[in-house]
């Protein structure tokens, strides 16, 4: 049971990180530099919106990948501590 929890705890941040990277990779292409010659502001905004969304999602996923990854690492070190320390009264 403990091992399953530990494995889950380490997989979640890694999964989040992979998801973030994939989102960035799969984001649609940016409009060209001279987009003002080809399209209106509204068209540009429509083109750009999914890219912004991908970056937003990636940033949030990476944030939680880092936070949960740290907690997972801390949890692993905590459980690896020798049981003698548990005899100390808190």
């Amino acid at each position, binding site marked *: 049971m403990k091992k399953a929890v530990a494995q889950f705890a380490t997989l979640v941040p890694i999964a989040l990180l992979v998801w973030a990277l994939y989102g960035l990779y799969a984001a649609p292409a940016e409009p060209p530099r001279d987009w003002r010659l080809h399209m209106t502001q509204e068209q540009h*905004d429509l083109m*750009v*919106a999914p*890219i*912004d*969304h991908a*970056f*937003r999602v*990636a*940033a*949030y996923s*990476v*944030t939680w990948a*880092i*936070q949960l990854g*740290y*907690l997972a690492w*801390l949890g692993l*070190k*905590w459980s690896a*501590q*020798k049981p*003698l*320390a548990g005899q*100390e009264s*808190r």
Partner: protein
Amino acid sequence: MKKILFGLYAAFSIALLVWAFELAVNAPAEMMQGDAYRIIFYHVPSATVAFTFFAISMAGSIGFLVLREKSPVKALAWDGWAVSGAEVGIIFCTVVLVTGPLWGYRAWGIWWAWDARLTTTLLLWLIYVSYLLTRRFAAGPQMRTSSAVLGIFGGIGVPIVYIANRIPGQHPGPVFGGDRSSGMAPEILRPFLWNMAAWLFWGILVLILRHQYELKQQAAAALEAEQSLNA
């Protein structure tokens, strides 16, 4: 009893984060940068938390150096806060350094700039990573003293770097937003403040966990020392 209180605090922090996320997602999108600006809701709070915890770490270092002769037990507690503050601060600083470029690229078209804020943040990150490396590599009882001294050096370097970057010179960097509270619209300010509170609570939660782990480590080390003396 303590565990129940802690559990309640943890649950409250998570609830706060969820609420803050809801507010952030539903905040109006009228700012000039399009939707990518929402990164501000956890980028700036993470930076605030990181700098606060680095300050806690420096206070811990100073406390340890002052108290280590007079009362070693108290000094050890201060040292515990020093290392916890440093480590959790580094985590939040990493978040800032990763989400910042992602936001900057969408908003301003550049991944990085060597202006005051960014350089200071990067420097802080490097200094506290070297602090952790010192703790790992230094051997024996001097480890805490050496790293405490390093913590002080690192702390006084930060304002110097910040001032150095504000000098207009050859490479003027773009003025990155961040502290827009003076000019923030109230519809944005409300979710921003909730997010600030939520991340602060979460940060303190992680800090307490790290500190508890450090206390256990210190107890284990003391026990080991005692056993080897008696053996």
